[in-house]
């Protein structure tokens, strides 16, 4: 063989490992179900992570969960906040190589505004219209002014540019049904979809034509396990590199003890709470729970520190407000509010003073109450909220006055995915018994629970107390909405209806000055703390197990390690 021949042979042999090299893959294990990769139909947080790397939003959330521009590179917002002139980056392409320009943005926004997919309503309803003003620039006309931060959070919440015009119907033919049924394969983000086997895994690979910072990794895989034990064992076995959201506390020491692994704890936007049924419009009324002293007494029977220590091994925040002490929320949080003092004896005294006594010696207090059932005024089957925030009722002559004796004996229903609350309520019920309140906690399947809470028409409200929680999202407006009268029959679980609170919710949405807005939100928190539709228990930390063989994880406040920034930045540790 000639010298060149040998040289070629050596090069070929040397290149073989490169040719056969495995793509650099980062794998995330989780228990999550991904309902959809369509931004218009996904409701799961985990689905949002995948969508967030498949598509670029106009804005994104940074490590402090504050909105920052993403596709948008320049913004000019009018003083009245009604006109937004935005410019997107040049060089952006869809995953099929087609350029993404202002035409695409305008197409998407117009299509969504025309069809208003239900789950994107909140992200779109403030936009009146959109028009193209340049090859990469467009103008948004807003229906009304709302705080700039809120608008940006809503634009960052879901990528709104996800319909490639080259494969979607023209604007005059596009329908809501098309958008809801759309199965996204072509994105515009740093990762493109390779494979999605439902209930099994999602495989993404780095998009070579991405306009922005490219990820270090070649591939990103999300693998589903049906139990946290399996997920953690997969982490320790090296099958995955990140175990997302561990809630079984017994697994945390197992990871921490293992060499080469650790657990990251991030303050979250998830709250766990006690929810009282405050509906008063049908026969399912719970007169005992409508008495403020009963709810206050129960609040005095909750030892939050003990619960956090025993159940959460310290991995939860004792924050008594409907906003956490994390991310952007400290600016809005009412720091004057503190937990009701843990004192079951005091609870007993409060009940005694209000006439709740144990007449039959069974350890449970009772009282005779006269109460009024005030049916809701329904128009086309929907309740009506007056401009001053009141719920409209049928005429007073149709109200029903009743008298009955009621015991402080309540069923507490806990949704299956929050089954850890069973342990929490086992602790609370012992202290509540001292005060003469009997709690009977039980885990219930979600579907059945929803049926009892809302039923066919949304107003059923046939329950006592719930042990549940919320992911409150990155802006205070969401939790305020769910507690307002507007969400009764929708997502209001407690059926809380305080006109002042409802008014404050509406007002803060229109208040543009951040400090004035924060003041309104603080007053709203005060009302919740006083009226107790919820007793806020704690805010569990987001715990993610991870392998130390990787570095570059970005801990995003309220979210944890599993976020877009981590996926762009993560790489093998040296």
């Amino acid at each position, binding site marked *: 063989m000639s010298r060149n021949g040998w040289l070629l042979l050596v090069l070929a042999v040397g290149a073989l490992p490169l040719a056969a090299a495995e793509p650099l893959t980062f794998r995330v294990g989780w228990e999550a179900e991904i309902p959809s990769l369509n931004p218009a139909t996904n409701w799961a947080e985990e689905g949002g992570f995948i969508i967030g790397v498949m598509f670029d939003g106009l804005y994104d959330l940074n490590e402090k969960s504050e909105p920052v521009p993403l596709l948008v590179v320049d913004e000019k917002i009018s003083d009245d906040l009604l006109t937004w002139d935005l410019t997107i980056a040049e060089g952006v392409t869809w995953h099929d190589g087609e350029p993404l320009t202002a035409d695409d943005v305008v197409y998407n926004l117009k299509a969504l505004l025309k069809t208003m997919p239900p789950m994107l309503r909140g992200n779109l309803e403030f936009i009146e219209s959109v028009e193209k003003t340049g090859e990469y620039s467009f103008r948004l006309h807003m229906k009304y002014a709302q705080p700039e931060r809120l608008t940006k959070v809503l634009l960052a919440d879901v990528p709104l540019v996800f319909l490639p015009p080259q494969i979607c119907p023209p604007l005059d033919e596009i329908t809501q049904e098309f958008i809801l049924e759309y199965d996204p394969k072509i994105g515009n983000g740093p990762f493109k979809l390779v494979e999605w*086997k439902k209930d099994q895994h999602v495989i993404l690979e780095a998009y070579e034509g991405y306009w922005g910072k490219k990820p270090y990794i070649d591939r990103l895989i999300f693998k589903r396990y*049906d139990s946290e034990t399996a997920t953690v*064992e997969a982490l320790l076995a090296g099958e995955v590199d990140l175990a997302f959201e561990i809630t079984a506390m017994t697994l945390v020491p197992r990871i921490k003890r293992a060499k080469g692994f650790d657990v990251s704890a991030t303050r979250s936007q998830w709250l766990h709470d006690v929810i009282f049924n405050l509906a008063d419009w049908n026969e399912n009324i719970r007169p005992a729970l409508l008495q403020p002293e009963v709810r206050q007494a129960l609040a005095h029977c909750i030892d939050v520190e003990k619960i956090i220590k025993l159940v959460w091994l310290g991995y939860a925040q004792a924050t008594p407000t409907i906003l956490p002490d994390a991310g952007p929320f400290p600016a809005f949080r009412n720091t004057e509010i503190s937990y009701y003092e843990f004192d079951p004896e005091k609870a007993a005294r409060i009940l005694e003073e209000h006439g709740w006594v144990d007449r039959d010696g069974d350890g449970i207090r009772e009282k005779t109450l006269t109460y009024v059932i005030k049916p809701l005024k329904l128009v086309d089957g929907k309740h009506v909220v007056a401009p001053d925030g009141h719920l409209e009722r049928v005429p007073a002559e149709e109200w029903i006055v009743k008298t009955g004796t009621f015991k402080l004996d309540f069923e507490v229903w806990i949704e299956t995915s929050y089954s850890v609350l069973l342990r929490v309520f086992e602790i609370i019920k012992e202290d509540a018994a001292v005060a003469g309140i009997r709690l009977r906690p039980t885990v219930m399947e979600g579907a059945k629970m929803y049926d009892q809470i*809302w039923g066919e028409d949304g107003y059923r409200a046939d329950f006592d107390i719930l042990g549940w929680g919320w992911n409150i999202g990155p802006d205070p407006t969401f939790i305020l909405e769910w507690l307002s009268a507007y969400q009764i029959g929708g997502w209001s679980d407690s059926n809380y209806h305080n006109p002042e609170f409802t008014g404050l919710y509406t007002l803060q949405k229109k208040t543009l000055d951040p400090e004035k807005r924060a003041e309104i939100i603080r007053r709203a928190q005060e009302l919740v703390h006083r009226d107790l539709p919820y007793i806020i228990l704690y805010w569990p930390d987001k715990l993610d197990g991870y392998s130390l063989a990787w570095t570059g994880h970005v801990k995003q406040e309220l979210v944890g390690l599993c976020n877009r920034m981590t996926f762009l930045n993560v790489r093998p540790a040296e």
Partner: protein
Amino acid sequence: MRYILRRLVESLITVVLILTVTFFLFRVIPGDPARILVRGPGITREVIEQYERLFGLDKPLVVQFALFVKETFRGNLGVSFAYKTPVLELLLERMGNTLVLLVPATVLSILLGLFLGVLAAWKRGRPLDFALQVISLGFWSIPTFWLGMILIMLFGRTFATGGMITAGAAHGSPWSYLADLGKHMFLPALTLVLIMHGQYFMIMRSQLAEELTEPYTRTAKAKGLSTSRILRAHVVPNAMLPVTTLIALNLATLVAGFITIETVFSWPGIGKLVYRAILMRDYPVLQGILIFLSLSIVSANFIADVLYTVLDPRIRYR
């Protein structure tokens, strides 16, 4: 022949009755699929009603049932609410995944159980018999999920902890694929074999023990036949009748998948699909599975009845 035809007609009537009852039963269970599948802030009552219309749940029940019957006879089992995939396609995929795991595990369980049952009966009353009973009954009594979790914790680093295949693995050859599949199958299959073999062991052992006390076995021994010949040619065939019934009945329910096994090991089979469909109130999937299960169980019973006539010449159907 007349008997077989009669059994066939009875089986079909059974399937139709089951379908009718369960169609209405699912809709009586509390829970609104639209509310379960559509969650998130900003979701109002109007939105939920919109999804109910999309799923066809706003129509009167009788109309829904009529549509269901019509489409079923056309081979269209509908589209899953949760997966947005044709139900038939979903069922076939998941059924395949279930069979890949369950068939070998069941065959091994049967063979192991029968073998150990024969061994125990042969050595009945002795330490080996006692030990085999304790081990088999012990495994039979252990909760499946617990054993599965323990095996994951002990052997998860050698074998896979979940799923059917390594996600994203580039299998260069069918052997590589089979090796990966085998690695994922090992722990769930082992769990199944350890748990399931006990029932076959017990029934085989007790049947054999009873047969071995029959006068004909004493006669055979007196005639000079070896113990293994007596077992093989006379006793085991007689003992197989109730074992066959058990195997047939178990095979029928096997197609439902082992929900627990599939959940513990994240195996994407039909058992897990059933579980999730119940949680999500995914009516089309539940109905599709029920049609499938009904056909399987009724067919298995039918086959068992026919097999009896083959195995036992004393049985003749009029």
